[in-house]
């Protein structure tokens, strides 16, 4: 009886694993099959031509550039918020602190909020401040989305920093500021992993940028201009009835997937490195 049970469970687990691997493979096949023929050097280097939003000619440079600008801006803004938070709860507050626990809980809750809600929230902010759809608004929305991810993943590693390390630095004469430097240095592979994770999340998210960054056929040249993004390029082009335009959506998906793939491989590499570094 025992043996049979074990067998059944083993089979079920195997099937589940296969389903995961299978869907990953199918997604890759689908994207490559339709995206690769549409891919060309022009896709990466030209902005679209022949019709606003869903022109058939040209490339996706508007969306690639928009996504890159947006992600860079959002990551910088997100780090500017999350690093002080992580430092505060791990260096300034004692080990067992109610405030730190509340902060962690809030970050967890924020982590679970769907991105469309962040989009809507940023949208109300925009209306309040009289901001138009723009790269800046998109950056704000996306940074709201990734800040909890940054906080949580950096906090995970910052909590592991032994108290002895801080004591050691203190007894060598370090000031609080020096301690912060040491702690940040100690968790730097963790910070890198956190950044890569949140970039992966930010670059693929459509809902948060829909109302905030907007969409455009040109490459934004300032923060106040609207910006196209890869997820929205997929969304708009896929909803076109024209076959060639739909294929361009798959090309965009291919580019996006390639970027995310590279990022997650890098993130894995760095978190491996972190676990090796641990004292």
């Amino acid at each position, binding site marked *: 009886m025992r043996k049979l049970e074990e067998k059944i469970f083993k089979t079920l687990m195997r099937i589940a694993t296969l389903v995961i691997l299978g869907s990953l493979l199918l997604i890759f096949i689908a994207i490559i099959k339709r995206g690769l023929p549409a891919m060309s050097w022009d896709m990466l280097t030209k902005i679209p031509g022949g019709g606003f939003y869903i022109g058939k000619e040209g490339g996706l440079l508007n969306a690639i550039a928009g996504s890159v600008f947006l992600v860079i801006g959002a990551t910088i803004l997100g780090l500017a918020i999350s690093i002080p938070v992580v430092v505060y709860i791990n260096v300034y507050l004692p080990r067992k602190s109610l405030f730190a626990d509340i902060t962690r809980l809030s970050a967890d809750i924020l982590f679970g909020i769907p991105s469309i809600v962040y989009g809507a929230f940023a949208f109300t902010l925009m209306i309040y401040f009289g901001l138009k759809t723009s790269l800046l608004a998109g950056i704000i929305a996306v940074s709201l989305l990734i800040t909890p991810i940054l906080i949580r993943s950096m906090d995970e590693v910052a909590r592991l920093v032994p108290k002895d390390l801080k004591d050691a630095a203190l007894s060598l004469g370090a000031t609080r500021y020096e301690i912060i430097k*040491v702690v940040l240095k100690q968790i730097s592979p963790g910070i890198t992993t956190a950044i890569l994770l949140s970039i992966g999340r930010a670059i693929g998210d459509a809902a948060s940028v829909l109302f905030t960054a907007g969409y455009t056929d040109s490459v934004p040249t300032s923060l106040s201009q609207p910006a196209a993004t890869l997820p929205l390029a997929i969304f708009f082009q896929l909803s076109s009835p024209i076959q060639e335009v739909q294929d361009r959506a798959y090309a965009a998906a291919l580019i996006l997937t390639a970027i995310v793939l590279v990022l997650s491989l890098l993130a894995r590499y760095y978190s491996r490195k972190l676990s090796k570094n641990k004292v």
Partner: protein
Amino acid sequence: MRLLNPRDMLVRAKKSPKVRTLFGGAAVLEPENSHLHVQKDMPMEKPHISVRNLNVYLQQNHVLKNVNIDIPSNAITCIIGPSGCGKTTLLKTFNRLLDQSLEVKIDGEVLLDGENIHDPKVDIMHIRKKMGLLSQRPVPLPMSIFDNIAYGPRIHGIRRKKKLERLVQKYLKSAGLWEEVKDRLNTPANRLSIGQQQRLCLARGLAVEPEIILGDEATSALDPISSKKIEELFLKLKEEYSIVLVTHTLRQAKRIADYIIFMYMGEVVEAGTADQLFNNPQQELTREYLSGYFS
């Protein structure tokens, strides 16, 4: 800083079931006369650190109770006692690492070369510079071997590369690590073995040119050979430094200690030369501890 009245704390300590079951209510632990247990004939002309009526409360726990001891210069003083008796707390009081956390109340005096370390006029960096700390597990800073040693000197304002190089070499040699690492000073310090890391931490502590070395179970994470190496270093270093070591291994204390402080539940039960304490303990509690009756 909230704090219970010390008298309440004493009552609490006496009521604690642990005390009663172990000693059947005997008055061994009567804190009021605890200073009587300190052997008066500790031959100390000019103590390096002297502690007078020290009481420490951590989050309303009365952790150190009326501690009166002297730490001699150029000798190894071992602090022994069961887990949780306050050894680490005492060490951390010495270089003021306790002030860091929130709910701490410290009463009484700790005199370092006759100067009260808790005097508001005293510079905390100055206190810390006089002591090197060695923790239970070695904690290399996340940087190269060279930068680990140079960290302290740099903080204290030494910038010249030549000078730093000289210091790094000198203290790696004192810690007996130079030969092993001289060819890879720029590799990350956490690549060293645990024993090497502990000697690195010792060198790093020495590089700020302290007068006192504080070690909190500094060899307990090490294999026997590495521990022996560190012990030998301590024996050599006591020529120039005063050394205070917390240790759990009585055998280690017997091997290297000149003076012993035996603590129990926040109090110093007995203190004296290693010879006095091991061969002629005055307190019943000390005798029990030494004979391994409890630990």
